[in-house]
C-alpha cells in the first residue's frame, strides 16, 4: 500500500475555500453534521488538524476531516488548521490514507465498512485480493463470505442504511435485506417509519417475510401490502410496541396457517369448556406433543382439593376430550 507523504506544515484554511460537497474521500456514515462533535468544537476547538488536497480551481478537497469540518462550520468557525497535500498523489492512495486514519482513531460502523469496501471496488478499481488484505484494518476477518456480506450492504437504500446504524441492526440482517429489490426495501421502510424494531425482531420479521414471499411466489412488497398487515399500521391509538406485536402475529398467522388454525381451535375449545381460576391449561409448544400441560399453584390442602375438583369437573366435559383427539390425531383402524 502507498505511503503518503504530506509535506506541508500546518496552515489555517478558510472553510469557504473547502468544497464540502466533494465527498470522494469520505468514510463517515451517516454524513450528517454531528451535534456532539459540533458542541465539542464550539467548546474546545478542533484538536486534530484535517488533511486537505489542493485542487486546480483553488478550492480544497477534504481528504480527512469529513465530519470535523462541517462540525466546525456549524460551530461558527471560519477556518480550520490543516495539512495540505498537493495534486498527483492519486485518489485511491488518499482514500486509503483516510481509511487508515479513521480506523486508527475510532471503530467504523458496519455501513462505513461496507461503503469503504464497495467504493474501493466501484470508484477506485481495487481487486478482491486487495480488499481481503485491507479487511483486518477494518476489524473484519479476511474471508470472502465476510467480504460479500459487507460489500452487499451497499445495496441497501439510504433509509435502511441509516436504520441499520441508528438501531444497531446486525450485519446478517442487513445483508438479507440488501438482497431485496428496491421496491421491497421501500415497502419495509414504510413499516419501519411507524413500527420501531430492534435487531432480533427485525430478523424475525425479515425471515417471515422472505419465507411467505417464497412460498406464495410473491414479492415482499406485495406481502406487506396485504390488508391484515396494512391495518396494523393504520390502527389508531396503538403504540409502536403494540403495532410491532400485531405485525409479528399477522406474519406468523400467514406463515403458519395450519398451526395457527389448530391452535385457535384448541383455544376456542378450552375457553368453551370453561376456565378454572388460577389454573393454566396449555397445548404443547408447536403442537408437537399429544397432551395438555396443566399448571397451578396452591397454598393449602383445601386450595389443592378445590382446584382438583374443578379440574375433575372440567375433565368430564366434552371439550377436553375434543382437544386431546385433535392433538392425538386418532384414526379408525
Amino acid at each position, binding site marked *: 500500500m502507498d505511503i503518503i507523504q504530506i509535506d506541508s506544515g500546518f496552515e489555517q484554511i478558510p472553510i469557504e475555500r473547502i468544497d464540502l460537497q466533494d465527498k470522494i474521500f469520505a468514510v463517515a456514515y451517516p454524513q450528517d453534521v454531528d451535534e456532539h462533535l459540533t458542541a465539542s468544537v464550539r467548546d474546545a476547538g478542533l484538536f486534530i488538524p484535517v488533511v486537505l488536497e489542493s485542487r486546480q480551481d483553488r478550492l480544497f478537497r477534504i481528504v480527512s476531516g469529513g465530519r470535523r469540518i462541517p462540525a466546525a462550520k456549524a460551530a461558527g468557525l471560519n477556518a480550520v488548521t490543516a495539512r495540505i497535500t498537493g495534486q498527483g498523489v492519486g485518489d485511491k492512495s488518499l482514500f486509503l490514507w483516510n481509511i487508515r486514519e479513521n480506523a486508527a482513531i475510532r471503530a467504523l460502523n458496519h455501513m462505513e465498512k461496507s461503503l469503504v469496501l464497495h467504493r474501493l471496488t466501484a470508484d477506485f478499481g481495487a481487486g478482491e485480493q486487495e480488499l481481503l488484505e485491507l479487511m483486518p484494518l477494518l476489524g473484519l*476477518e*479476511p*474471508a*470472502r*463470505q465476510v*467480504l*460479500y456480506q459487507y460489500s452487499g450492504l451497499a445495496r441497501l437504500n439510504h433509509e435502511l442504511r441509516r436504520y441499520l446504524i441508528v438501531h444497531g441492526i446486525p450485519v*446478517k440482517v442487513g445483508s*438479507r435485506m440488501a*438482497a431485496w429489490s428496491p421496491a421491497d426495501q421501500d415497502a419495509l421502510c414504510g413499516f419501519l417509519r411507524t413500527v420501531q424494531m430492534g435487531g432480533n425482531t427485525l430478523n424475525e420479521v425479515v425471515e417471515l417475510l*422472505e*419465507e*411467505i414471499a*417464497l*412460498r406464495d411466489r410473491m414479492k415482499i412488497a406485495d406481502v406487506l401490502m396485504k390488508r391484515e398487515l396494512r391495518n396494523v399500521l393504520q390502527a389508531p391509538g396503538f403504540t409502536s410496541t403494540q403495532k410491532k406485536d400485531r405485525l409479528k402475529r399477522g406474519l406468523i398467522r400467514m*406463515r*403458519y*396457517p*395450519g*398451526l395457527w388454525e*389448530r391452535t385457535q381451535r384448541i383455544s376456542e375449545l378450552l375457553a368453551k369448556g370453561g376456565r378454572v381460576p388460577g389454573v393454566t391449561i396449555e397445548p404443547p*409448544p*408447536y*403442537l*408437537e*406433543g*399429544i397432551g395438555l400441560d396443566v399448571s397451578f399453584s396452591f397454598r393449602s390442602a383445601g386450595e389443592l382439593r378445590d382446584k382438583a375438583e374443578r379440574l375433575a369437573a372440567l375433565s368430564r366435559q366434552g371439550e377436553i376430550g375434543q382437544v386431546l383427539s385433535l392433538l*392425538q*390425531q*386418532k*384414526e379408525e*383402524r
Partner: protein
Amino acid sequence: MQAYRPERIVVEKGCEGLAMTRRILERLPGLPVEICDDLDPAIRALGREADPVSEGKKCLIISKYSGAFLKKCPGTQGFVCCNYLVLNAATGCPLDCSYCILQEYLFNNPALRIFANTDAMFAQLKEWLAKSQGRDLRIGTGELTDSLALDPITGFSRELVTFFGRQDRAVLELKTKTDHVEDLLDLPHHGRTVVAWSVNPDHLIESHEEGSASLKDRLSAARRCIAAGYRIAFHFDPILFDLGWETSYLDLVDQVFSSISVESVSWVSLGGLRFPQSLKRIIGTRFPQSRLMAGEMVPCPDNKLRYIRPIRVQGYREMVRRIRTHGPEVPVYLCMESREVWEAVFGNGPAGVRNLAGIF
C-alpha cells in the same frame, strides 16, 4: 452419472504409500497433488471462501483417521432410535443436495476427506463384531457421505462387501443416491449387504439433489443389484410435505414398487424433511430460490425444524397405506421421529410394529 473428479488433491504426509491413496491417485490422473504435513492451512483457507461447501467439494483430502471409525448413530435426542451403527470411512459428499445436513455439520471442515488407513478401520470393525457376539448389527456407511458416490475412485465398497460377506451376525447397508453399482455385482456378498437408495420424485431430484442419479437410473441400479442377489432398501427421505406432495410421493411409491420385486426389499424408511435451525442460513445463502424452508416447519424438542406434527402424521399414514398396497409385509419404519408420531401412524411404537423386530 459422472464419477466424482475434484480439482485438486491434498495428501497428508505418511499416506502416500497406502493402498487406498495409490488407488485414488491412479484413478484420478492429471490432477494437482500436494503432500502436506499439516492439513489445517488448506482447511482454513476453504473456510474463508465465499461458499466453503462448494469449494470443499473441489478439494479431496486423503488422510489417516486416528479416532473411532465405527460409532452408534447419534440419532436425535428424545426421538426413537433404530440402533444403527455408522462406519465413517469418508466425510463430505460430492453430491450437492440443497437440504443436506452436512452443509452445516461440516461447514468449518468442508473438504471432502477420505481416510486411507483402512487397515485400522477393518481392525476396529473386527473388534466390534467380536464384542457383539450373538447380537445382529446393522452398519451403514452413508452418514457423513454417500456410500457409493466415491466408489469409482476408491473401490472401497468392494472391500467392505467382501468383508461383510464373511460375517454371520452383521449386515452392511450401502445408502446412496447414485447408480455406481457396477463394482458390486460380482462380489461374494452372501446376503450380508443391503444396497439402499434414498428416493424422491424426479422433479425434486432435479431441483434439490444436484449431481445425483435420476430416479430412473437409481431404480435401474436397484434392479441390477437384485439380479446379482442383493437385498435392497428404500429411504423415502427427506419427504417434502409441501403443497401437492401427495400426488408426487404416492406416485413415487407406485413407481418404485412397480419397478422392482417387493420380495427383495429388506426395509423402507420414511423421514420428513428436518434440519437444525442453523442450516437455514446456509440453505438461504447457497440456494436462495429454494422453497425448502417455506414449508410449515417448526422447532421440535431436539431443536430441529420439522413440518408440524399433524402434517407429518397425515403424510406418513398415507405413505404407509400406499406402500402396504404393494407389499403388505415390507418392514416400514420412521426415521428420527418421536414415539408419539410412531403411535399415531402405526398405532404402536417400534417394538409393537409388525416386521420390525429384525431392525430395532
